[in-house]
Structures are given as C-alpha cells and as structure tokens.
C-alpha cells in the first residue's frame, strides 16, 4: 500500500502507523457521562467500503493524516491533514 502524505508525497505503508476510525467525536472534557466516553473510546463502525482512518506518518514528518480507504480493495481515495480538517 502507498499513502500520499500531503507533506512528503507518496510513501510506502511501512512509514505509517494506523490509529483507526476517524469518525468518533471526543466529548468535551467537562462531560462526565460515562456512556458518552464509552461510545467515544470503544464503539466503532466496521464499514464495508469507504472508511476514514487516522494514520500517522510516523516514519516521516509525523503528521497525523485522515486517510479514506476502501476496506474492500485497500484502495486509498483521499489523504488529508488531520490538523487542517479538524480546525
């Protein structure tokens, strides 16, 4: 697999570390509802098809990326900088 890092260009998968689903939204730190945190930390969709996932370019610029991957083919459809998207 190859991932096109927005900073470094196309690089081999071995330079990246996956973190998983980018969809869950972190509850506010003031939120004390255990269910909200349980859902954020533990509950994940397992979609067939497009999936947005965090990857870190750990063997490169160390930026965190959001990689859109087709779970059926491993085709990578999009790569963006998490920092840009989350702002």
């Amino acid at each position: 697999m190859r991932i096109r890092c927005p900073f470094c260009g196309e690089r081999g998968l071995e330079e990246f570390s996956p973190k998983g689903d980018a969809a869950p939204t972190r509850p506010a730190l003031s939120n004390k509802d255990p269910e909200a945190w349980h859902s954020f930390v533990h509950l994940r969709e397992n979609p067939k098809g497009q999936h947005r996932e965090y990857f870190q370019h750990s063997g490169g610029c160390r930026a965190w990326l959001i990689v859109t991957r087709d779970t059926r083919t491993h085709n990578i459809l999009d790569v963006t900088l998490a920092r840009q998207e989350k702002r």
Partner: protein
Amino acid sequence: MSGFRLPSGGQIDRSRPMRMTFDGQEVTGFAGDTVASALMASGRRVLARSFKYHRPRGLVGVGVDEPNALFEVVNGATVDPNTRATTLELCDGLTVRSQNRWPSLGFDLMSLNDWVPGIFSAGFYYKTFMSLPGGWMFYERIIRRAAGMGQAGRLPDPARYDRAHLYCDVLVVGGGPAGLTAALKAADDGRDVVLVEQDMALGGQAQSEPNAAPWLRDMIARIMAHTGITVLTRCTAAGDYDDRTLMLLERLSYTPDKGLPDLDAPQARLWITRADQVILATGAMERSIVFAGNDAPGVMLASAAAGYIQRYGVAPGRRAVLFTNNDSAYDQISVLQSAGIEIAAVVDCRPVVSGNCAEKARGLWLRTGHAVTQAIGRHALQGVRIGRISGGVVQGPAGYEACDICLVSGGWTPTIHLSSHRGTRPAYARDLQAFLPGDMDPAYRACGAVLGHWRRQEAINNALEMAPTPAQSCSIDHMPLWEVPAAKGAGKAFVDFQHDVTASDIRLAHREGFVSVEHMKRYTTLGMAGDQGKTSNLTGLAMMSACLGQDLPQTGTTTFRPPFTPVPIGALAGPDRGGAHTLLRRTPFRALDKAAGAVFVNLGHWQRAWYYPRENEDIEDAYKREARDVRAGVGLCDVSTLGKIALKGPDTAEFLNRVYTNGWKTLRVGYVRYGLMLREDGIVMDDGTTARLGPDEYLMTTTSGGAGKVMTHLEYLLDTQWPDLRVHVTSVTDQWGGVSLAGPKSRELLQCIVTGSALDGTALPHMALTHAEIADTPVRIYRLSFSGELAYEIFVPAGYAEHVYKVIWAAGKKFNITRYGVESLGTMRIEKGHVAGGELDGRTTIFDLGLGAMASSKKGYIGSVLQHRPGLRSVDRPTLVGLMPVDPMQRLTGGTLLYSEGAAVLGPGEGRVSSATWSPALNRHIALGLLANGPSRYGETVVAISAVDGTRIDVTVTSPHFFDPEGERQYA
C-alpha cells in the same frame, strides 16, 4: 534404464559438463540442464517416494508444476528441503538427496502403507487415532515422522538474502510468446518495462515448440537490445499485494555460472516491485487425466516430454503411448519422433478427430474413442491398458500395450494464480473448461495463454491488442475428460500426487457429506501441499462437481494465495536478522560504562548498564553493594534513556492539564512536577516529570520504554483532537545525556564542580531545577529522587555528556563515588515503593497504585471519566502493597500469585507480586505487589504461590514504603 541423452539438440552447452551428487552417486550433465533433466538422462526413473503411501514416483512435469521430484539440497550444514528438481539448475558440486524414504529410494520400508487397504484414506488419521487411548497427541509424533516431506536443516540459515525495491511503468510477468510481445510493445511505446521470467531462459512453451526457434531467437535479441526493458530471469513473481506491489524472488545461486551459494554474496534477492501497470502473461499449464496407476514412473505430461527433448536434449523413454482428449498432444508427435521415440499408440477419448490430427498421426496406431484405463508397473511403467470409452464410461475389456512412457494431455489450465492473489474471483470459461483471470484492477491486464489463447500466434496477436480480451472459444479441439473410471482392483488413481490424494478420497469425502469444496479440500488435503495443487485443483473440483451432479463453477473455484512457488523464510527476512532485526540504542555514556566493566542489558530498544561487577562479584553481590554505597555516600547512574519531550507554546499548561491527572496550572517556572498519564480508557499509561523551563516552555520526561508511545499520543491529541491548542512538541531524547547523582553526599560533591548556581536546600529545594555549568558546560540540574536519597538529575547536551560525566566522576573520588546500574536502581525504587514497569503493566488504575490523590477532581483529563467504571473502582481490586516474606531470607519472584491463608489455590488468586528484590537497606527480601483490599490488610499474612514451580512462601502485607517513608533523606 529408460531416459537417455540425445546425440544432439537442446539448449544445453555440451562443452561444459557439470557434476552433481544424487543420493551419494555422481550424476553428470551439462550447463543448461536441470537436476531433473540430468537425472532423466542418467536413466533414473524413481526419483521420489510419495507422501503417505511411499509409492515410487518419477517426473511428471518439466517446470514449476512438478509434484513428485522434490529433493533436499545439501550445502555444508544447511539443507533446503522440498526443492523441485525441474527448476533446480545443474551446477558443479551440487549435492541433492531424495526425501521421505527409508532406507533408500529403491527399497522403502514405509511403502507397506500402500498395501494395507483403507489406510490413509481421507480423514484416516483422525478417525483412527482420535479414539485410541493416548489419543492424537501421542500418535501424531509417530505419524509426522512417517508421512512427510523433506527435513529442513536444524542450524540457522547462513545464507545471505538481499532485498531491493524496483519501480517501473510496466511489469510484465512471464517471458513466453505473449510476455515477450507485450514487453516489446510497451517499451516501443516509450514505457519503462521490467520483464520477469521464473525460468533460466526466456520463451516459455515456445522453447518446446519445434518450429519456434527462429522467431524466439529474434524476439530475445530485440528485447535484450532494447534499452527500455530490464529482463530478470530466474525471477518468480511470487505474490501480488495492494497498490500494485509485487513480490519477486530472484535466484542468484545454483546456476551453472555462479555455482553453489557463496556465503559472502546473496543467495537470492527479494524485489519489492511497484509498477504503474502489470501485464500478466503467465501462460498455462498442461493438465493430466486421472486413471488407475497414473502415478507410475513413466506416466508424464505430453508437453513435459516435448520440453525435455527440445530444451535439454533428453528423451524420457523409448516407447510411448500418447493419451489425450485434445488436439495439442498431436503437436508433440513430431518432437517425439525426432528423438527416435517409438509411438506405440495414440489414444484419444474423442470418437472422431480432425483431419489435421489424423495427418499428424499418420502411420501411427490412432485409437479414437479409447482411453488408457490403467498403468501397469510399480517402479517403472511396463505398459498400459487401453479400453473403449463412451460417455465417460469404459466399455468392454481393455487391451494391453507395452510402453515405458505414457504421455498424457488433459488440456490446458491458465496460470491465473497472480490474478487472484488480491481476492479477484476467477471467471469460468465453459468452452475452455478452465478458469480465467476475473475482473481485475484496471491497472492489470492479462494476455496470451492465461486468457485461453493457447497457440503461439494467437497469444502474440492477443498481446498486441490494446485491451487483450479472453479467448471466446477454444482454439484447441477437446472433449472434457477428467478421469477414466478405474475398474475394481485396478489400484489407486491419483489426483494430487504431492499429497497422495486419490479419486476415491474425493468420493469418500462426498459420501461423508462434504458438499463444500472448501471442506472437501481440507478433509482430503487436496491441493494443500507445497505445489498448492498446480496439477490437481481443477481436476479435484471437476470430480467433486461430478459427485454433486452440478456444474463446475457451481461447486466453487480455487483460491490462490501468495506465494506462487515457495519462498525461503530467509528471503522474506532479508537483511533484518540478528542484530539488524531491530534498532539498538545506546546512551552517550556507553564507552565510559564499557571501560568501567559494566554488564549491559537490553531493555526495549535501549542497551543499558545493568551492574558494574568488581572482581569476583556476580550480579547479586554487585547490585547489593551499589545500592548500599549509594545510600551510604554517593552514586552515579545513567538516566539518558528517559524519554524527553520539549513542549512549547502559550497553551502548554492547559495541554498538560488535559493529559496528566494532576493539576499543572500552578507549576512555577524553575520547578518540576511528577505526573501520571492515563489512557483513554482510564488505565495508567505512563509516568514521569515535567519541568517548567520558562513561561511557555516545558520539558517532559517519560519512562524509558514509554517515550515513543507518549510522543505519538501527544502528537495525536494536538493534531486530531485539539488542533486549537497552541503547543508544539519535539522529541529531544537523544539530544540530552542524563545522569542521576544520588546519595547523602551528592550535594557536597556537586558544589565542588558546579558554577553559576547555588545548590543548597533553599536555593534548590526538592522538585526544583536550575541552569548551571559544570566545567564550562551548560547543564540543567533537577533536584529529583527516584532512589529516595538526596539526589539530582543532571542533563547535558549529548555531545558534552561524556565530558561532564568524567568531571563528576573525578570530583567524586574523594567521596568514594560508585556507579550504579539499572538493577540497583530498581532495588532502591522498590525500597521506596515507587511504581515502575511491573506495576504500570497496562492493567492498573491510578487507584490500584495508591495514587488516587493525584486524580484531580477539579478538571477533566484523558481517562478521568472511564477510570471510574464500576469494575475499575471495585473495592476488591488488587491494590499496591508491600510484601515481606515471614522468613526474611526467602526470595520472592515477580508474577507469583497471592492467596489468603487457607484459601483454595484456584484461579488467579487475590493478587500478584509485581516487583521483588533483596533490600540491602532492610537486610531482607521485599516485594511490591497488588492485593485485593490491600491497604486494609497491613499486618495480615498471605501466601505467595508460584504457578510455575508450586513454591509457597508466607508473606506479611505492609505499606509499600519500606524505607524512609517520611522522605527525610530526599528532603535533606
């Protein structure tokens, strides 16, 4: 004697004889021979004993599909088992031996297996041995010895394997007519082309074709001369992975030119190849027809016989019966005749054959509507029975024809393996009776025989198309015939030679209710040997379909997974072995420690000084002395391995507040605070200190092992969760060397060498830091204690670390300074009840560690909510305690389980010993542990029981703070 060398012909170099040893006997051949062709030329027929029945076996194929002739290649102390004789090139000094026989190939006692009815049929082992007393576990050992392949060597593989990356516009897999044509076309279009061919020579089937030589010579010349084409022969495309990444294995030894492997040079090279476009011109393999006794040495594929004649100038025998269901076998007649082979009969199951075929068989005994029903001969084929066949059923009695070879053609099977490695399901082409590559990724295309274009000109034309399409109809007339039903008593008919799976095994599996082809495969082990069923999968599938009375594609398809042919594990590991397997980190004090006689230990990636033995000291003596000397005077310990992360930015305090459990807003510049970090789920992740160097500047330390994890965690949070926080993190672990100077005399020592800062208790109180110089070198001095003594951590830019260390050491002489390693460091922290790796094991909460006071209730932080999940706050969770053996001389070990006195020794107990040591300060063994309801049980005696050796030790539960619980020494 049967096979023999022809006086001329073949692509061998008769001026270069090569000698090898086979089972201790010398065999000669020529450069360009394979071991198989050389053995055939020597007249040997039995080259192997079969997997289960130990039946004598000979050559069936001429290439990668060969199921029988597998040898152990012996080179010095190393043994490569299961090497195909048909692809192993003959070279001088080669030593090979046959496998799976005892005492010899000619006389194998294990062949008794073949004479016991019913033995080793499908499911035999399980049905028989599962119910016997002692069961499978006992018998398996015996069975594994009897049924098997070659034995691998037991020594580490000394061979070197290279790894390389290759990028190209077009990767063409297969150097046959289609591949050559496609490669040349792509290169002429200006593309950068790599052509890979597993064989030693280019040409594929065209090498065996009598009239193809001029065309082939011309093509090869053009390809070799083309600057846009890189040709890799002896290079197998073994696997296809995501994003057009292919794994190629190139053989670099065992060739006539290079000879035996040279340990200084790589034996093979693994190419990790990425291509914009992949062209699969992988060709097709001839398939056989199943009949009774079809494994007798001398029964082989018709195209293989032609291959031995055309490529190696070897005749497989003298008198042949040709048995076919299709036209392609007729092309071999002239080849056989050119080698002087007498053709006793041409047996064709089709009732009528074309005039063209009849013409090619002119003058021969052509028996249409007939089939070979049985092969006669055990160690060598004596003859075959030929009977009339109609509707797949043998009619009437069969006649006998003497022959020493029976050449079979059951049609052609496209080599679609690579096309389905990424999960593309093959497509069934009814007219071809074969699976073709399915709907592949658009960057892939196939051409030639793999698409059913059997004949050379067809394959070439197909390769020239813009978008090559599969054959619409079969260009070779054929009639489906997978199996000639065996008459009763005619003997075994084999489908999978390499795993000894017979036609009756498949029917037995069907009778026992295995309707799914996947189950049938696993039950009979069809296609599960090293050749992955190259010659057997489709036949087995067709036979299963016949049992089920359904169409072949309804029954299922075959699934191919990498590798296409076996790849040595060493080639996958490549250079990543031994010391190069993982990185090794050393601190700036390595040379000094080495000179001081340190014994090192690898902890994570770090190599650290473990202890510093003086003469005659062992580890026990050394660490006890070091710990005693530190508490009595002063000691120096390398703490450079601590993770160090620089944090900068106006929101750093807020960020620390979110990642640590305790509060950070009140930390003043020049002070250090201890912090605990939780994982998102509330379990403790790491601990360490963070110093405030300036208003917006902090330096965090982490545990040595947790540095990478914490860094990644912080980066993740800043990039993905809180990008609004203005904080920048940088790993500076390697930029700073660090030592801990600990002991009651540490301040006095430092005061002798430090300039630029006062060090007394008022100027530099506990948990404060200062910037100063030692011997003109700027240093940061933290007053911190892990040992419980008055202690300082001194951080120096890594390049000056050695220099500063030497100055400290020299000044320490008059204080009787000692070096101490990680062993005594561990001892002193256990005496103090500080938690470390044994306690921060990914299972403990802040409350389990007795550090609940550090869990702020005034703010939210990572893990703050989930650490209160009911199960994590249950009162009977194991909680940090100290443990003292009732007999102070009894040694405790980490991992020992704790039980109440008199309680049943069952399950995980009520807790565990996490870290244990001899305490020089207390003069007894002590330990830290986690015990249910721990803090309320001080004074109670519990039993520590080792689940490994059953040792029982009575221990008293105490506070974990064994030594100087009030901390008077560190605050001194």
